[in-house]
């Protein structure tokens, strides 16, 4: 009997153990899918592509390159436009040239890995039509080329990885790869984009690549390659720089790629408001949908996928109930870069020829006859925003006394001392101006805190025309260059240029005013190797309007703000993260770091 009981209890015991083990311990994950599920349907491929596109270094509103972004709260645009000195951030002081600010090494290779994985499985798949697979492969090649462009423009020659590497436990030395020459990377991008352009059709759903998107990227990348050959020295045995003998063929590649897009007739300059040139230029950036000028854009959707451009940049008096405003402010230097409509130099008329300050009854008259694009790029003191005048005053001058305050509520002789968005209070523009391009007046103040959905235009015909013009000018085809620039001038509402007046600098100047806050000009200054001359020892300047109480008119002062900026020659390349140098003995650090 004893034995029977013992036996029975053992059976029961073992039975419970045996039955339940599998059920209890083998719980299923809710949110993990295997690699093979990615290429199971068009929808799942689309989901994978969503991730790949999202990792592209588009340098848009939400892009954070550096892991800690040095206290920047609002992404790439702020960093880049700050670096160009087009804008001045009201919190951040000078930018250290330690080569880490634009760091995008880990993120870049992490994205490359996922694309390599995807490319390998697309190449293996037999589940879909060849045309379908070609389109996907073309998109993947385009994205990978974009990633490598993001890497090469920062670091110069870098390791070229085109397959998925895996750590097997004993192949560490195999994974320690050396850098490739800079030329090799540019050539790789060039041929990859050619393949991508061949594989993809001429049109695509909004937000995805097609033949012309690949060519638009190519025209821009080739400008970088050509500039490296033309203006940069060859260093480190070609890891940095490209022999100057290659310059012309790269200019030609850029010229040809841009020309194909222009000739296709698929795109045209946005010209919906021919009677209001400023409004036309303003609206161009708010309407990426059904916009004939847009070649490729990143779209947002409220409320799931948003950015916070407006939240941080609205003028103080328009800020959301949560607060925050006025983060970056256009500088006086930027204002002066915009010429007058007639083509004359854009220097502001603050003093007369005797050196006395000019009094303006209407303060906006200071900007009379400026390039209309200026009014769409910056909110100027006393200009209108959302139908209301933006009051930016620095103070009141009464009988030679200057009255200022840091309190918005303070009044002097019944008049508010500083404007509702005026200089001197906390959390207001550091220069007296506010950013306007990309700022969407249709968002109510209560909404901006939850995010904006203004799209980011990565490639537009205007930019392609500039690529074309630059390559043409460098190749000496001044007629082509003038034709491209004059298309933009006509759209902007300013006087055309004559081919005989066109130089490379004409194109560069056009770049600067046409593409403010599009995160291109900083890189342009780098590739032209002018940054160390233009940006070093440089102060941003603010424009302070003072109201003369007796004369009932405004005078303007320009004031240096912030700290002097530095640009050392080593900053033409970023520093490879020092941890990477110690992990991979075959990696060589860039000079100066």
């Amino acid at each position, binding site marked *: 009997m*004893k034995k029977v009981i013992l036996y029975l209890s053992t059976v029961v015991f073992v039975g419970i153990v045996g039955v339940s083990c599998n059920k209890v311990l083998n719980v299923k994950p809710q949110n993990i899918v295997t690699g093979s599920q990615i290429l199971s349907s068009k929808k799942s491929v689309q989901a994978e592509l969503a991730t790949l596109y999202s990792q592209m270094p588009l340098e848009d509103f939400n892009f954070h390159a550096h892991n800690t972004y040095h206290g920047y709260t609002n992404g790439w645009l702020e960093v880049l436009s700050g670096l160009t000195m087009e804008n001045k951030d009201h919190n951040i002081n000078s930018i250290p040239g330690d080569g880490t600010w634009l760091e995008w090494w880990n993120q870049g*290779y992490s994205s490359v890995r996922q694309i390599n994985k995807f490319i390998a499985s697309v190449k293996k798949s037999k589940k879909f039509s060849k045309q379908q697979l070609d389109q996907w492969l073309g998109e993947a090649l385009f994205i990978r080329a974009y990633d490598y462009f993001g890497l090469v423009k920062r670091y110069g020659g870098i390791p070229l990885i085109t397959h998925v590497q895996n750590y097997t436990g004993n192949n560490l030395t195999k994974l320690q790869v050396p850098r490739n020459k800079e030329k090799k990377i540019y050539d790789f991008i060039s041929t990859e984009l050619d393949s991508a352009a061949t594989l993809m059709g001429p049109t695509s759903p909004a937000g995805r690549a097609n033949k012309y998107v690949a060519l638009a990227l190519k025209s821009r990348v080739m400008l970088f390659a050509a500039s490296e050959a033309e203006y940069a020295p060859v260093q480190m045995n070609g890891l940095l720089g490209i022999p100057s003998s290659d310059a012309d063929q790269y200019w030609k590649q850029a010229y040809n790629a841009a020309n194909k897009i222009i000739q296709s007739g698929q795109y045209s300059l946005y010209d919906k408001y021919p009677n209001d040139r400023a409004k036309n230029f303003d609206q161009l950036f708010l309407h990426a949908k059904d916009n004939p000028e847009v070649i490729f854009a990143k779209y947002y959707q409220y409320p799931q996928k948003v950015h916070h451009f407006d939240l941080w940049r609205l003028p103080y008096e328009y800020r959301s109930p*949560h607060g925050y405003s006025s983060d970056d402010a256009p500088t006086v230097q930027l204002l002066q870069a915009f010429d007058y409509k007639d083509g004359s130099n854009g220097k502001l008329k603050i003093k007369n020829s005797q050196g006395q300050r000019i009094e303006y009854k209407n303060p906006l008259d200071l900007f009379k006859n400026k390039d209309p694009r200026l009014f769409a790029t910056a909110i100027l003191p006393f200009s209108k925003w959302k139908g209301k005048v933006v009051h930016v005053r620095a103070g009141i001058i009464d009988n030679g006394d200057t009255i200022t305050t840091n309190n918005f509520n303070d009044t002097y002789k019944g008049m508010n001392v500083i404007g509702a968005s005026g200089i001197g209070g906390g959390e207001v523009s550091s220069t007296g101006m506010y950013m306007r391009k990309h700022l969407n007046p249709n968002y109510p103040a209560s909404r901006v805190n939850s995010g904006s959905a203004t799209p980011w235009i990565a490639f537009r015909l205007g930019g392609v025309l500039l690529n074309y013009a630059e390559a043409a000018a460098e190749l000496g085809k001044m007629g082509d260059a003038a034709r491209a620039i004059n298309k933009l001038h006509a759209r902007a509402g300013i006087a055309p240029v004559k081919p005989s007046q066109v130089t490379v600098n004409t194109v560069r100047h056009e770049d600067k005013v046409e593409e403010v806050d599009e995160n291109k000009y900083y890189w342009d200054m780098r590739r032209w190797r002018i940054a160390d001359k233009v940006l070093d020892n440089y102060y941003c300047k603010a424009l302070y309007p003072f109201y003369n109480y007796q004369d009932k008119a405004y005078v303007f002062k320009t004031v240096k703000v912030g700290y002097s900026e530095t640009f050392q020659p080593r900053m033409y390349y970023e520093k490879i993260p020092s941890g990477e140098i110690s992990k991979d003995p075959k990696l060589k650090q860039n000079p100066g770091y």
Partner: protein
Amino acid sequence: MCFLLLSGNLIAQSSHHKKTFAFYTKKQDRGVLRKSNPAINLNLKNATLGQALQMIADQAEASLYYKTGVLPDKKITIHLKAVPFSKALQKVLAGTSLKVTISGRSIMLQKRQITARKLAKAPEQQTVSGTVRDDSTGNPLPGVNIKVKGTTNGTSSNGKGHYSLDVSSLQDTLIFSYIGYRTRTVPINGRTKINISMRSQTLVGQQMVVTGYGAAESKQDITGSVSSVSSKDLEHTAKPGNTVDMLAGKLPGLRVKETSGEPGSYSSSFDIRGFGSPLVVIDGVPGGDLHRLNPNDIKSINVIKDATGAEYGVRAANGVIIVTTKQGQEGQVHLNLRSTYGWSTPTSAPTPMNAYQYASVKDGALVNAGNPPAFSKKQLQQYKNGTLPSTNWEAAAMRKYAPQYQEQFSASGGSDKVNYFLSLEYLKQQGRYKSGDLNHKRVNFRSNVTAHITDNLKTSLMVSGHQDQQNTPGHSAYVVNRGLYWNYPTRPVYANNNHNYLQQVPDGKNTVAGTNANITGYSHNLGRQLTGVLKLNYQIPFINGLAAKGFYSYRSYYNNNKTWHPQYTLYSYDKSTKKYIPHIHRAHTTLNRYFRQSTQTDAHVSLNYNRTFLGKHNIKAFVLFDQETRRGDDFYGNKQFPLSIVDHLYAGESANQQINSDVITPYGDEGLVGRLTYKYNSKYMVTGRFRYDGSSKFGPGHKWGFFPSISVGWRISSENFIKNNSNLDFITNLKLRASYGKVGSDNSSSFQFLSGYSYPGPSYVFNGSLVKGFSSRGMANPNITWYTSRTTDIGLDGNLWNGALDFSMDVFSRKRTGLLGTLNLSLPATVGASLPQQNLNSDLNHGFEFQLSTKDRIGSAFFKVSGNVAYTRHKNLFIERHPSSNSYNNWRYNNSNRWTDIYWGYTVVGRFQSMKEIKNSPVQDGKGNTTLMPGDFKYKDYNGDGVINYKDMHPIGRSDTNPEMTFGLTLSGNWKGFDLSADFQGGALSNISYLGSEQLVQPLPFGRSGLAQFTNRWHHKNILDPSSPWVKGYYPPNRGIHNSGSPNYQPNTFWLQSTNYVRLKSLEIGYTFTPHVSGVQSIRLFANGYNIFTWTGLKNLDPERVGEYAYTIQKRFDVGVNFKF
């Protein structure tokens, strides 16, 4: 196997010899008596009565004590098979002058001749009556023997402790005797009413310790490191609402830290020996909520600190806290009603600046930075003399004392078949806010019922639960507290002092608005937990000493959260237009709802075998199979509202509404547990334990781990060289013990063994619609598995002078290997994926504990003192990192083989006294000392290279804010119905750096207001004149609103403060009396306080509070009454 134990209290007494022997059961509590009749098997030839009784005792899991000579010297031969306990006793004692009578809740063995007392009664006899009570608790003592000296005439007290005895003369003397109490001899001296109290005698081995899966072991036999508290130790401790807080300082090795005083936050942290979060097991159910447990339900808390918790394998690496709740006792019904009402007030908090202080500190800072001042000399004067008002935000929004109220009720009792313990608790606490919108309510209930179905089968159903709700106003305690320091004292609470218009302040954090739910909304957090436990206990009749047990528990958690954040308006007053300008805060009115529901089941079956062979060899074997599952589900929704009137989702807009849920990974764990104990003559003890444990977190082939432990004990006091040495007879018990074991932890995230993709990942907009993407999981580690802890503990337990002095000491070390780390640092980023976590790193904790207690009586006053001290420190043994490129980097950043709490910083050698000194000192700001001014910290050139930079940072203190050393001291005593208990608690060897805080290192952070302490700073004699001489102060001079760039705000010895402290944690004074009301057993009136006094060198912060803006730690005071029926 707690209910396999014999739970009765068997008393045998021989009145002739005035000597006793007794079976002491494994119950700590004297009032806990229950009939139980375990089956006894005996097979003895020519054994002494003593051996036979010993065997019965062993099988009943009782311990046997008697003095030689009590038992008749006789040999017996007896064969019993599964005979009920009481019958077995009768059979063994048959033919002796001892007789077994089972009366009420006790089984008494009496000499036969005593029973004839009634017959001897003489007609002229008189009656003496009275009540016998426990001297320390005041509880009545039933079953006390009362005898007239020199006669056989006697009686015993009834269930109410009442007795009545006929005596032949009122000049006789009475002798009161009771097991476990000192016998008292009381001359009648002509009285007819004699109420007496009896003092308990410590009897070694009486105290029971509960360890893994309900195993109970007498304290003298325990071989592991376990500290215990019983209900008695908690009864007279102030109850601050969080039961964890009551344990502070009471258990050596258990660190308790009260991090916030917010009602309903339950945020106190606790750990064992600094190991991290321990496993809490309440009535056998793992993962219980110790914070919200009704303290009156607790029968005992046992903290297993070493590897003897290995039975819980997977979760035992940080120690195990085993809580046992009360059970009803056979016999009388006990009703207990306890009510308290109290008040709470902050312990210590920094003082915000007043308007004058703010204006002058602000001007000083601006002038120092070379800017014009913000306040004119005239304004400063007006603030100083009160012409201009100053706002005290704290006084506007906070009350001095917040009320709290607590009601506890319990009933217990039982018959020989069924017993029960029922309880109910209600707690209500108010917060500091004048609005009353911060408050907390909790209701707890418990029903523990046990039924004896047959002699061999017992079943228990234990159902318990609680519901608690915390209501907070629209701004969190953090924001409100920050507002007290941030808000300008120069601004009024109400615009233009018109009470219809709350003043606009930066960010809209007006404290009065933020604390008022009518203005800023509210958050209601409701939590509910329900636990049911079913136990079956079967004494297998055919095999001696074998029992089987089944256990099933089901627990459900439910959370319901509602957060209503309406838009609200603050105003500024425009003097020029005489208009109130509205400032709307919050972009929308929003309502958030959150629901979460989760369940946990735990089931186990076990076999338990316990037998003594040849009277000396005791073997206990135990095997158990355990299975646990956890599942959860949640849902939340959010809407925006056009109007801030109706706070329900149906009134919201459907545009922009959001619903979502979280990824809640299911979890499962299984284990096969075994334990084998061998005891030789209660002198040598060894226990081996193991758990073969499986976790769902790991991949195939790596789910299971084997975790063994061994513990040994040697009771030195049982050796003849102590026992037979009359010089050492003060040693009641002395035991050396040691344990070593390996336990595992699966403290990693699930599914790291899977590669592939997680969905959803990043999203992107294609053609106007949002597409959710996949995110790559990178490389997987299919080999990821348990990390293991190896814990060694050596301890010495002693008991001297029969319990007058009791001590226990331990030294321990815990080494963990296989801690998760990543090789990432050595894999180039060009691979594009980081390596998954691997079992790479190792660390070590070691320390000691010492506990000492003594108790005695002076006159009619009884007192007890117990103290403990514990020390623990944590060290990394190996931390994976990329190789250091030079020796400096190795010294600075290689944390392998190094204490984990090293704080690196500069040593402040003094202050710069003059610009000249600054000029002539080594550069320490990287800018030629041009940014320095007198009063700034002067740092030590640690490496002597003539420049002060990051290379001069060196270890200057501890980075951990948890004390490495903790103390506790408990005093208790009583005298004639009065009682007093006090708990002191403290910590040492820890630091806090003010650097991480906004307010404690500088005034005016972010341009806002700050703390009054900063008026004691270096400043110019005339703050508006930068050329006036410097006046010295405690803090460095301040400039601008952004101080962060200054070298003053680098880690240094000035900002690193010691958090050593001692505090009078709890003090309770009570008076107990028995009113002349039938049914009322006793009434106790009491008053208590919590966190009453704190002794610390730490300035401006409570040493336990984490963070400057956390809700202040509270002192609490209660008055209360406790009725017993």
